[in-house]
């Protein structure tokens, strides 16, 4: 049992040859060895080193159970909004601090990669790398990628050759089906510790729960026929029976905390939409830029996605929805490089007009809001041009501002947040890089422009409406009539009830949407290829119905989960 590492021979040889090392170097080495030593179970260290992490009892309890009882293989199935990501981060950080995690892999949906990276870096000081296309997996000990990327055969082989200390799968209900490539890949992973995160482990029937548990600890629930005979009600694959025993077995791998079991108060989220009446100049330039986009979009040389102009036109349409100032740069780019001469000339003229427009009806609304409400306000925009315009105008009126945008250094970002917390009334921020920062001291968010992707909108609101926020949150959405944004906002409000969702629910809803990464593309395609108002309305109605269906599916799943886990809880009670 006790083996001596043969490396001792080299040391003894050096000793015999009197090849001594400097004493201070040896002392440093022994200090380093002591620090690098894996530590046994003791008190939790990660909380002491985490930044801006509130120590919630349910999270601490979950972390202890995973570390001490479940040996690092667990299904974290807390209800939405209870901070599963933070829980997983603490567990991971604890393993890293104890020297038990030197290689870790996090598999998340593409839209959450940056959020994970930023949260782990800012809260736990863990530097994860988001794998870029073509990069090797073995190069980075701490890696984030998507399940879809990882399961591709050539990537799969490379990953399966590695021994990971910890693997985390977010939105693990994607592994519910044992016949999929993803499931096969996950079950072949060589990892000591595996954390599966999902708020809805059961989407259709109990087989999915069985599959997830079997992935973590095969045999816990026996074979599937045995599981079905023993634990699934006859005639309804969704209803459990022998609930006490099933619940006991599940507790060997699963942790599920309900919101009502915690003392956490979830503040309300109130949304208010301001349908702004644009000025005549704004109306005219919006209409002209839209016409330009539609015409250019239909030209074969610009329409094809391969040409890259397709994306430029999409950005231009978004920019003009934000503010004329935001569109200037793209129009100038088109003026310089567009293959059609006619378009180039048009772009020059539009750019000049956009630059000259000073008055902004949205800005007038914003100033009124800031002056009326005594609260601090975060104003989000997607574009730097708009950000600068807002900043100049507010500063000109003597309102204290702080700005936060992509490309700032870490120190500048910290300073921007500090300035907003301690001095400024308004923080003007782009969407870039704000994840993981603690902004709960503010409760009023203004969406100066609206991203077409609801996930981006959710991420904005999520910066203040999150665990730790104690006051009700107000969201102000600005959009002008008959713009893309007004249609998008309409379906998000009416079909998705987006502003009444709990933190984290939108991810689950969009998970049911047939092609969520393509939502922005669908919106643009619909807008750019439609000729009249009725066609646009029809198109957005269809899109809204798809989203409504996704929401219905999610509600069905949520209800099913509630029923199953309620039955299991009563069984143990």
């Amino acid at each position, binding site marked *: 049992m006790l*083996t001596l590492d043969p490396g001792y021979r080299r040391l003894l040889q050096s000793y015999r040859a009197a090849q001594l090392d400097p004493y201070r170097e040896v002392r440093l080495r022994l*200090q380093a060895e002591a620090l690098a030593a894996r530590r046994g179970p003791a008190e939790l260290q990660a909380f002491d080193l985490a930044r801006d992490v509130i120590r919630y009892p349910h999270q601490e309890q979950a972390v202890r159970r995973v570390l001490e009882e479940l040996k690092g293989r667990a299904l974290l199935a807390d209800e939405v909004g209870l901070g599963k990501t933070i829980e997983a981060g603490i567990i991971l950080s604890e393993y890293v601090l104890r020297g038990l995690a030197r290689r870790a892999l996090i598999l998340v949906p593409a839209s959450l990669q940056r959020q994970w990276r930023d949260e782990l870096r800012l809260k736990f000081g863990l530097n994860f790398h988001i794998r870029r296309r073509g990069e090797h997996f073995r190069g980075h000990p701490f890696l984030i990628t998507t399940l879809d990327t990882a399961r591709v055969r050539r990537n799969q082989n490379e990953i399966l050759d590695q021994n990971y200390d910890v693997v985390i799968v977010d939105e693990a209900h994607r592994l519910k089906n044992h016949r999929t490539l993803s499931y096969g890949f996950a079950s072949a992973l060589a990892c000591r510790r595996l954390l599966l995160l999902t708020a809805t482990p059961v989407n259709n029937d109990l087989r999915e729960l069985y599959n997830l548990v079997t992935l973590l600890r095969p045999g816990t629930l026996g074979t599937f026929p045995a599981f079905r005979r023993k634990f699934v009600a006859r005639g309804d694959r969704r209803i459990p029976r022998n609930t006490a025993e099933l619940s006991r077995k599940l507790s060997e791998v699963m942790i599920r905390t309900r919101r009502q079991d915690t003392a956490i108060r979830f503040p309300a989220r109130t949304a208010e939409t301001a349908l702004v009446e644009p000025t005549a100049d704004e109306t005219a330039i919006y209409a002209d830029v839209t016409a330009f986009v539609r015409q250019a979009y239909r030209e074969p040389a610009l329409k094809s996605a391969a040409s890259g102009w397709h994306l430029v036109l999409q950005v231009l349409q978004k920019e003009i929805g934000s503010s004329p100032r935001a569109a200037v740069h793209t129009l100038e780019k088109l003026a310089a490089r567009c293959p059609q001469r006619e378009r180039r000339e048009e772009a020059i003229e539009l750019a000049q007009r956009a630059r000259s427009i000073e008055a902004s009806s949205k800005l007038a609304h914003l100033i009124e809001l800031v002056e009326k409400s005594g609260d601090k306000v975060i104003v989000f925009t997607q574009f730097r041009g708009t950000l600068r315009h807002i900043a100049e105008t507010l500063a000109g009126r003597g309102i204290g501002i702080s700005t936060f945008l992509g490309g700032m250094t870490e120190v500048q970002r910290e300073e921007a947040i500090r300035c907003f917390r301690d001095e400024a009334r308004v923080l003007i921020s782009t969407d870039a890089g704000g994840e993981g920062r603690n902004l709960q001291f503010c409760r009023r968010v203004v969406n100066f422009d609206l991203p077409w992707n609801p996930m981006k909108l959710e991420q904005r609101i999520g910066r203040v409406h999150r665990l730790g926020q104690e006051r009700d949150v107000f969201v102000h959405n600005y959009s002008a009539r008959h713009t893309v944004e007004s249609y998008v906002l309409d379906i998000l409000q009416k079909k998705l009830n987006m502003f009444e969702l709990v933190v984290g629910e939108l991810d689950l809803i969009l998970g049911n949407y047939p092609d969520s990464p393509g939502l922005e593309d669908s919106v643009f395609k619909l807008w750019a290829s439609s000729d009249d108002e009725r066609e646009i309305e029809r198109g957005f109605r269809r899109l809204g119905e798809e989203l409504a269906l996704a929401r219905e599916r999610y509600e069905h799943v949520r209800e099913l989960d509630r029923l199953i886990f309620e039955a299991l809880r009563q069984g143990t009670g």
Partner: protein
Amino acid sequence: MASGRIAERERFVRDFLRYHGARLEGPDHGAFVAELPAALVRRLKAPLRLEVAFRPAELSEHPGATLLAPGNPLFDRMLRLARRGGGLSRRYLRPERMGEPASWLPSAGALAAARLGTPAYRRRLLFTFRIAYRAFEGYDDIRSVVVGANPPSAADGRDFFRDRNLTEEPEPGIDPAPPVDVEAALLTALAEIERRIAPQMARFVQRAEGQLANETERLREFYLAAIAEEKTRRERRNGPRDDHRSEGRGEPEVIAATGRKLEWVERVDRETRLFAPRVTVTLLGLEEIWMPVCPLALGTPEEGVAAELDLASGEITHLVCQTCKTPLGGVPLTGARLSSPQARGRVAGAETVCYPPPSHDSPKSDSPKHDSPEYDSPRSDNSWAQSFCPSCARASGRA
């Protein structure tokens, strides 16, 4: 506990940076700025002017600082670099107290009782090991063992007190030390380590094997049940098993059952590979330490105690009763013991202290009376010796 670990981390970072020639600015505790030499900038991939913090609270005052903790690439690089360093050193300990006995012995009474011989130096080998326990979870234990190396002393009469490995110290230019059987010393150290960790290791192995057995049993049951189900399914479809008929036909159930078996073997193999209990001892460092010692005599040469005074720690070791020649081991020497006869019993503990009975019949030593002036005791009684020697005390019936 956590603050202790953070302090440990901070001490290491400061030592590391200083050792590599960085200039540290700021207070002795908490966040600081270091100016790194170019070589270290390259090796650490760090900026020339590095600001570091150790506690999250320090970041509010130092927003640009890097929080150094495991998992942070910069800290991990420091650890890696330091761990690549050497593990072999030699130290000559300085005596805590030097000069005439009067300057370091606690009192005049003690001075009267003890006489010092010529200083000598005893070599000890300090082995530092990492003991890695690996099973479902793993943890490490860093332990050191000191082994007295033979020959026991090497007194060449020169200045052994210089710390030869400290760069700021001049090289004393001493002769090479006499050879030592380092392998034998390592074996002794390992035996000692094994003795010390035996209970812990037994508990660890028992727990880990129990867990592994449970896991393997669960897998066995799971796969056997799955294979049996495949068989039942086949029988339901084809009737009772007919090996001749089914051989080579590649029926889906047969293939599935075979697949299950392979999966099982592979899984158990993987679990065993990953989780079978292992305890590995790695020798991390070997330090040769030269301890300044001084022969010491208490009482008369025939009936007193011969001992060795560790000049570094002030402890008396290697005590031998001159009356019965019994080795008495090591006894910490306190001022109170030497100076106050009334306090002896209280301070030294009943098991080692006795007073000579009036009729104490001590075994006669064959050796002639020691007439060296070193041992010329101003005291005529042998109470020192008997106060330390339990066997003499037992013989006297006064224990």
